[in-house]
């Protein structure tokens, strides 16, 4: 048996790394398609974390208690951190942070469509933590085994933090479901609105997603969209039952032969509408992001000016004696 380093051509060495389930690292040779696929995926993942702060940020000033407010701030701060880990991972592939931010701001790179839905009530904060972070965890646990080292390492770090996100969300739902009839109705309404968008997070059917097979061959992706979605449904249905909430799908039922829950068809027209920019909040999210970037310009300028001044002062004291 030959070891990875004994293979002669760079392409052979790359394939040997993939075959051996080892990690590709930034300084390794890699096919241009592999690099581009990763940049696109990691950048969009990063954009999603950053834009994902908005729907929840919407409720920070209106959280029902000081404790819930502190928790929500911590959760939103985590999402900012997730964005930063991921941008760093993308940068190891030879792209600058500036380029990625610009691609987001000009709409040439997208973020997950889930964040184009509005957060109408406090129960939405519970539903997001439980369902949206829950769906994200399903996907991200799979990505801890992705073939690109920096991406896998970012995922390990992120997954450690996501469990807090999902549990705080479920606890909000639990509290509402054990509260007044109005509170329980609010929780049910939130689930009615977030259930289907959460299922859409896993993307098109395997039969429809043309890029999936190449990603699976490169081991960037390790489990298919439909399998991840099924796993999420199987995990979530008992959690909804415990809350006493109904998932808004009349076709949802246990299938003893498959050993899985059967569920209804996603509204793919809605899916593509939102992906193509026509969801309820697409414009707001991007406008808000660009405004925040522009409003922060004086801070970036001041920090740069301060760094320059400090450097000049240090240089002067070194030569001046």
């Amino acid at each position: 048996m030959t070891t990875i380093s004994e293979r002669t051509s760079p392409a052979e060495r790359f394939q040997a790394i993939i075959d051996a389930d080892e990690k590709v690292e930034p300084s390794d040779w890699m096919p241009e398609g592999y690099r581009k696929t990763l940049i696109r995926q990691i950048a969009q993942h990063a954009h999603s974390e950053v834009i994902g702060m908005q729907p929840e940020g919407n409720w920070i000033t209106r959280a029902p208690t000081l404790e819930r407010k502190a928790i929500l701030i911590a959760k939103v701060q985590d999402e900012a951190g997730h964005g930063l880990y991921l941008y760093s991972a993308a940068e190891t592939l030879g792209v600058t942070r500036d380029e990625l931010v610009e691609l987001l701001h000009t709409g040439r790179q997208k973020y997950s469509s889930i964040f184009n839905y509005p957060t109408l009530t406090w129960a939405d904060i519970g539903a997001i933590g439980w369902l949206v972070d829950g769906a994200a965890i399903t996907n991200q646990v799979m990505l801890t085994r992705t073939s690109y080292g920096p991406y896998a390492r970012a995922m390990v770090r992120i997954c450690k933090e996501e469990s807090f996100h999902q549990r705080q969300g479920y606890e909000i739902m639990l509290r509402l479901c054990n509260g007044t009839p109005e509170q329980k109705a609010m929780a049910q309404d939130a689930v009615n609105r977030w259930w289907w968008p959460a299922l859409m997070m896993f993307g098109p059917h395997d039969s429809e997603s043309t890029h999936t097979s190449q990603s699976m061959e490169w081991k960037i992706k390790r489990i298919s969209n439909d399998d991840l979605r099924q796993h999420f449904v199987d995990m979530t249905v008992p959690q909804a039952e415990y809350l006493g909430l109904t998932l808004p799908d009349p076709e949802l039922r246990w299938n003893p032969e498959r050993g899985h829950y059967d569920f209804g068809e996603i509204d793919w027209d809605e899916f593509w509408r939102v992906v193509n920019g026509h969801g309820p909040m697409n414009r707001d999210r991007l406008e808000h992001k660009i405004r925040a970037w522009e409003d922060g310009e004086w801070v970036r300028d001041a920090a740069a000016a301060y760094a320059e001044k400090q450097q000049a002062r240090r240089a002067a004291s070194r030569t001046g004696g």
Partner: protein
Amino acid sequence: MAYSVPHVDGEPDPEFGRSESRGWPMWEVFVRQRRGMSHVHAGSLHAPDAETALQHARDVYTRRVEGVSVWVVPSSAIVASDPDEADAFFEAIEKPYRAATYYEIPDEVGQM
């Protein structure tokens, strides 16, 4: 899949790596998890100066007291070995006599 967006018909394929970074320089972050352990590479970040880099490192990499000490180093100061020269560079594999298992010691001698 979660947090990624399906390909849309006619989606442009941006060319990367052409622009020079106008932003803050990059720093590598090393965190000492506990007393008695080495600082271990945690990741990287952008910051205008060392002091700010330290504060960012605290916020980005130790939000849950993952460390008792942090180092930041300008990424440009890292000197790395060449992965293509790894075979010649790490030649120890040709020197099995450096490994303890190379030597046969009779069982009667006991643990050594």
